[in-house]
């Protein structure tokens, strides 16, 4: 068994080194495509975090004074429930707001330490029946001067625009990533086919002396797997760079105040990295499996 593993690793290493230019091309293609794919997923996460409070058709938020009494709160709730112009509303308590805040700023322990539930005002997130901007502003303004209300904030056109554009860009990146992944799989397939051609005589001898089918196939499949894993590894490094220099850069930008909530947590980055690694492994295995099952007659 030990000899078999040593043999497999040695043959895989030899294959990779023999056609180093093809190996590099396959790894670069897979890493660029996976980096684009992963970055698109991170961008989606970032925008979702930045615009979380505006998801689900929410058009305005009624911020209550933390000191508002139960009667004032009940009056607002009754108005929202009874208004035929309002489809639904959700109450976000101070505790709920703290949980949301903790999720959003989980990578900033200093900020988390400085904020308590009492610092965060409760709110109502409102989904109107008619999302027309004028109707929404008129509807929201009715609550502005009511007792206990601190402010009414509308989902601005800018936020809607960011959601739309970010969605479009990330969808585009995803598609480019998918097309490039297909190209990477084809490149891996061709690399393995070339490897099989270069070792045709060796393979013929292996068949003659009774090497098992998988013993012949496995070094080629491991080669594809190495392409996938190394490519995915570089892609993850690229994703770390995208978060550090692009997404965090946007969130720190003073001129893009709307994007200050744009951030990707460590957990999200880890999760997306696992996705990218799994896809890299799958592409590597599928490309090489297709090559050995169609071009390697054992």
């Amino acid at each position, binding site marked *: 068994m030990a*000899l078999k593993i040593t*043999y497999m690793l040695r043959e895989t290493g030899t294959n990779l080194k023999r056609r180093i230019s093809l190996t590099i091309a396959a790894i670069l293609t897979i890493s660029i495509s996976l980096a684009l794919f992963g970055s698109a997923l991170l961008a989606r996460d970032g925008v979702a975090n930045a615009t979380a409070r505006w998801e689900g058709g929410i058009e305005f938020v009624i911020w209550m004074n933390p000191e508002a009494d139960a009667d004032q709160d009940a009056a607002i709730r009754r108005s929202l429930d009874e208004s035929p112009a309002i489809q639904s509303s959700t109450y976000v308590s101070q505790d709920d707001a703290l949980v949301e805040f903790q999720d959003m700023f989980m990578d900033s322990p200093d900020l988390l330490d400085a904020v308590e539930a009492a610092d965060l005002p409760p709110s109502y997130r409102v989904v109107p029946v008619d999302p027309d901007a004028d109707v929404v502003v008129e509807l929201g303004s009715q609550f502005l001067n009511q007792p206990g209300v601190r402010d009414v904030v509308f989902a601005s056109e800018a936020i809607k625009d960011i959601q739309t554009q970010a969605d479009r860009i990330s969808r585009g990146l995803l598609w480019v990533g998918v097309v490039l992944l297909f190209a990477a799989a084809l490149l891996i397939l061709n690399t393995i086919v070339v490897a099989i051609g270069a070792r045709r005589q060796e393979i013929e001898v292996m068949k003659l*002396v*009774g*090497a*098992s089918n998988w013993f012949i196939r496995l070094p080629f499949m491991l080669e594809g797997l190495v392409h996938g894993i190394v490519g995915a590894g570089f892609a993850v490094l690229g994703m770390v760079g995208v978060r550090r220099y692009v997404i965090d850069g946007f969130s720190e930008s003073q001129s893009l105040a709307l994007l200050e909530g744009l951030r990707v947590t460590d957990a999200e980055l880890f999760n997306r990295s696992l996705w990218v690694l799994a896809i890299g492994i799958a592409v590597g295995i599928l490309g090489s499996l297709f090559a050995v099952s169609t071009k390697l007659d054992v």
Partner: protein
Amino acid sequence: MIKLENVSKSYKGGSDAAALQNANIDIGKGEFVFLVGPSGSGKSTFIRLLNKEEDPTDGRIFVAGKDIGQLNSWKVPYLRRNIGCIFQDFKLLEKKTVAENVAFALEVIGRPRSVISKQVPAILELVGLSDKLTSFPGELSGGEQQRVSIARAFVNRPLILLADEPTGNLDPNTSVGIMRLLDRINRTGTTVVMATHDRGIVDTMRRRVVELDKGSIVRDQAQGVYE
């Protein structure tokens, strides 16, 4: 050891004559059989069918009592571990030394390193190449290359040795040396089936001769001659 029952083989798009037609033969353990006949008579097809490089169009082939037509594809390598093959063109790996070429046959079937390090020098001594362990095939004569090929085919002690024109590229004196080696291997109990055009060898050895003509067995003679 080997039995063919009504075996026929034809190729798609080939000539009208089948490569092998309704062949019936029984070869016992430890026999030495020459397959003779003109080019295209079916000798190489016969060899390839025994090694399951090809499947018959009709009929059944038994090797060591097993119907090899019923073997799953994943079991074919295990069949081949019991069948050694040598060829006219040697099929040696040019970038491997003599010892590495022979060791390769054991390595790829998962034999432990300790076994390989014992068996390789022993088999190379048997074929008379103890002093060529680190030579590359390109540095050897044709006869020496065929000896390496025989060592590789026999190192795993197969039950059967198939030889397809093993002396086809060698001069008569070298051929005699190769035949002595095959005879020696045969005396260990290994069944040898050898396709050949070499009249001198067949007439000298006086072993069983099976003659093929246009895919049919036309003669099966004990202690026979070429024709």
